[in-house]
């Protein structure tokens, strides 16, 4: 099954600290799944508080707040959403897409035996462990974990007196973020180099599967933007520890305390926002570009039809990659930034909507006239398209500055990015999992359970996030521990209760996916599973690794009426290079 001919590992240590890209990919899968569970439980705790504030919270309340009615404290709520955001972004979505899928798919899809830097690759995974250790350690230091939101806005984050988590937790949070940044950086350098140098012969850039394109653009974004966040993080660390004043204004009075900010002669809180969003907006695209690529692959394979407009799809990815650097200011329309800058960022934000819309239309066109097999993978991919449309469209309203002024920092924003990341990317990750599971683990997931998993996940995801738009339009602000503390929002309670029940349902529903893994693992291997290419997919990862093979066409050659079967594999078996076979240049996939 596995195409690589790596030698058998000799010891457990070698197996664990493996430089083999597939092992690392699986390790990323396991770690991210664990973090997904943690982040999901945090989301449930938040939902409990939002539906029934200041009531006994199951388990958590009993352990952490035994004396005050088993009710979580508002400080703990701020820790919850800070950690939920941080974990989901930096320890679930990004590692799953780039770490797990990147490692498992990139070499296989470009016909490489290994990554360009296998040992660097191993380090990129193992750096995640101290990163998570730092994150977890935050819960055990005085003051608790970071509580200034995943955005860590100064001076809330830089001044110890400003928030409980800013005492020590924020320092650990910054360390965790920096370490995970190092991990992403190592991984991204590796991916870019691998894709640039290790493509098998004939694999031109315009024959790369869109998944690889998505991962390449995401890795490029990481390589270029991460240093800015790391630098910003170090500046914030120095603000916190040696009391420099990069982001901390002078003469602060917090409560009745005069924080020790001796070095500060008037730092700028907005500077942190600029540095932070200069990375974190591209990070949003890091979280969606690989998903877009994966969905394009899944749609094409299971619709048995070439991707419609391969080149525009690639250009759209590239355009998002470039424009992604120019739109960070749209997070700051109400921050007091110059209105002229706001106008510029508004225009670039409208522009970045364009490639995304082109991609959606191309996905529709890919499906149109296809011979659609509604496998679990396909269902999740279709679900991704539907939810991405919702998230993308609400993005247009958010881009219009006067409207954004109203909905900024309300639940409209929460709904918007959860539709993209939780609805969109997570569904794409499930699509990818169902699709590539046979390739990675040599087994096929149960289709029946997979379909049940999809239906519930799709319905409940919408139940959770759809009505958040209305909450936001009613003015409900984000990160509020008790929406009903202000009379203005008291009538929103039924909506929040509904959302909470839906969230509990969505969480429990993932049980079907876990059950699927267990069922698949427990049952006997079927004869069908000896088939290395169950979907009859054309791209390279489904064919046996062969260093001499030659790629002769694009990855999406399905439904060619002139071919004996409805698919033509991307490569032809290796021939002796000395035999004088003429290099066959096939036409690029997009005509």
């Amino acid at each position, binding site marked *: 099954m596995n195409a690589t001919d790596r030698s058998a590992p000799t010891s457990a240590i070698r197996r664990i600290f493996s430089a083999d890209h597939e092992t690392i990919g699986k390790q990323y899968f396991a770690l991210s799944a664990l973090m997904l569970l943690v982040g999901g439980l945090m989301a449930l705790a938040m939902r409990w508080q939002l539906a029934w504030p200041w009531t006994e919270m199951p388990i958590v309340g009993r352990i952490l707040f035994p*004396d005050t009615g088993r009710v979580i404290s508002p*400080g703990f709520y701020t820790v919850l959403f800070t950690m939920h955001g941080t974990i989901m972004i930096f320890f679930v979505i990004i590692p799953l897409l780039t770490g797990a899928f990147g490692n498992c798919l990139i070499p296989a899809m470009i016909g490489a035996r290994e990554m360009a830097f296998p040992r660097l690759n191993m380090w990129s995974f193992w750096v995640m462990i101290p990163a998570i250790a730092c994150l977890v350690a935050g819960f055990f230091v005085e003051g608790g974990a970071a509580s200034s939101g995943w955005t860590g806005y100064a001076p809330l984050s830089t001044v110890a007196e400003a928030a409980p988590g800013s005492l020590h937790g924020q320092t650990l949070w910054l360390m965790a973020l920096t370490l995970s940044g190092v991990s992403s950086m190592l991984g991204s350098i590796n991916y870019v180099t691998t894709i640039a140098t290790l493509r098998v012969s004939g694999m031109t850039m315009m024959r790369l599967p869109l998944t690889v394109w998505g991962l390449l653009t995401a890795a490029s974004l990481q390589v270029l933007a991460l240093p800015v966040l790391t630098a910003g993080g170090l500046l914030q660390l120095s603000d916190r520890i040696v009391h420099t004043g990069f982001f901390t204004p002078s003469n602060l*009075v917090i409560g009745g305390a005069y924080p020790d900010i001796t070095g500060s002669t008037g730092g700028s809180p907005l500077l942190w926002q600029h540095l932070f969003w200069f990375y974190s907006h591209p990070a949003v695209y890091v979280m969606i570009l690989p998903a877009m690529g994966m969905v394009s692959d899944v749609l094409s394979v299971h619709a048995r039809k070439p991707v419609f407009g391969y080149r525009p799809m690639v250009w759209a990815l590239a355009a998002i990659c470039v424009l992604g650097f120019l739109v960070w200011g749209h997070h700051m329309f109400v921050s007091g930034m110059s209105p002229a800058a706001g106008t510029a960022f508004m225009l670039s934000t409208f522009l970045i909507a364009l490639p995304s819309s082109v991609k959606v239309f191309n996905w529709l066109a890919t499906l149109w006239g296809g011979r659609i097999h509604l496998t679990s993978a396909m269902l999740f991919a279709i679900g991704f398209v539907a939810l991405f449309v919702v998230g993308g469209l609400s993005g247009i309203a958010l881009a219009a500055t006067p409207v954004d002024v109203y909905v900024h920092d309300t639940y409209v924003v929460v709904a918007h990015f959860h539709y993209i990341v939780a609805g969109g990317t997570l569904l794409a990750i499930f699509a990818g999992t169902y699709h590539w599971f046979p390739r990675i683990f040599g087994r096929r997931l149960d289709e029946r359970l997979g379909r049940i998993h999809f239906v519930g996940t799709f319905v409940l995801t919408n139940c959770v996030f759809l009505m958040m738009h209305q909450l936001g339009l009613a003015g409900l602000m984000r990160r509020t521990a008790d929406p009903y503390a202000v009379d203005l929002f008291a009538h929103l309670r039924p909506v929040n209760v509904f959302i909470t029940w839906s969230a509990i349902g969505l969480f*429990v529903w993932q049980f079907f996916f876990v*059950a699927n893994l267990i069922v698949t693992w427990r049952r006997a291997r079927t004869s069908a599973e000896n088939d290395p290419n*169950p979907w*009859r997919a054309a791209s390279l990862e489904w064919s046996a690794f062969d260093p001499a093979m030659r790629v002769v066409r694009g990855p999406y050659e399905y439904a060619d009426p002139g071919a004996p079967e409805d698919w033509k594999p991307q490569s032809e078996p290796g021939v002796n290079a000395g035999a004088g076979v003429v290099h066959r240049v096939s036409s690029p996939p997009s005509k």
Partner: protein
Amino acid sequence: MSRIPGRRTRARGVSLARLLEGSLAAWVLVVGLGACDFEPGAAPMRYDLAPSTVEATKSAGKVREQMETSLAAGFGTPGDPRYGPDPTWQGIDLDHPERAVPEGSGEIDAAHRDALRKSNITAFARALSDLKSGDLAGAGSSVKHRAPDLGRALAPGVAPDAARALVEGWYPSLRESAELYRQECLQCHGVEGGGDGPMSWSLKPRPRDFRNGIFKYTALEAQSRPRRDDLLRTLEEGVPATSMPNFQRLSATEREGLVDYVRLLSIRGEVERALVARWKEEDDLTPAAFSEELGLVWDRWKRAPEKLVAFDGPVPPSTPERIARGDALFHDPLKANCASCHGAAGLGDGFASFKIDVHGKREPAYIDAWGRPIAPRNLRDGLFRGGSRPIDVYRRIYAGIPGGPMPAMGHTKDAQGVSMLSDEDMWCLVHYVRHLAHLPEAP
């Protein structure tokens, strides 16, 4: 579902899959039913003895038990707080302070009650409109969140007029106020009002510990217990430059209820301290001893209105001359001597208020009534904890700030027994201090 090449049914695991599908329907049913009327509450809480009490009675388990029993009998539990078996023993119905008692101690009077009625109408506007449309159940459910007892009182069968009167004339029971306290105050001030809630440790200054009956920012002489109005003022205005916010979000009636409950916590704490002191002299704590101490404590609270600090005649306006004179008094070591603590520039860095420890680090020299280091206020940051009106500042200077080293200048006399500062002197200081607050802050 069309079949793709190579797809086969599974050999095993089918039964498990079917089982899962079957469980689905059951699960949806259970959750659906559960979701219908699910209203969780907080787990029961208890009043614990203060750490100092536990420490003092470490070797006397029996006394501690007696103390706990009598305090529980006298004040109930956080879920059901009350004043003893007979709440009217001191000439006032402490459980129902809105019921005016003829010889009462300035508790809520009729005119005040009308204001509360208005605030009820605003707070329960939705419930009242439900009542108007004859929807008793709707009204009941919309008040339940704010006033559980009232929600229960609006049971089906109540005549609309009676229901309306109930809502408009609502005054929270101690139980309702305790519930509101739990949601609004407990996270900082703690279950017993000890200033030790889950968030308290992160605040500077720490939340007030009600248990010794000292409230810093009142309109009264030092050492007296606060009036209702003093506590209400704190709830309405908050205390700037601390973490105490204002509570105008709540209706006036709800704030009155919180005052009732804070007073209960404070009295409970004072009685607890008194019992500890008493036990050190006597061996046994009888119920009679408890009643006696409770009576003494309540007497102090009842006398509060007599201790108002006010000025007769119009407040002298701020003039450059008064400010200049205030400046001189402020810095004069033989007069007000404010600069020794508050610093020459009013930055709160005077030499007398700090000591240098062995590491050369500056530490506050004074300890407050709660055992914590206390530094003088920076008068330049423009934030007045006890209010920024001239009369507020006057009260701070005249009566000092209880619980801390700020002296009552109005009572400070020199060796000849003559007041150090005349009234005019104090007004000059008031205007100088307010003038300091308007100066640009030194970097």
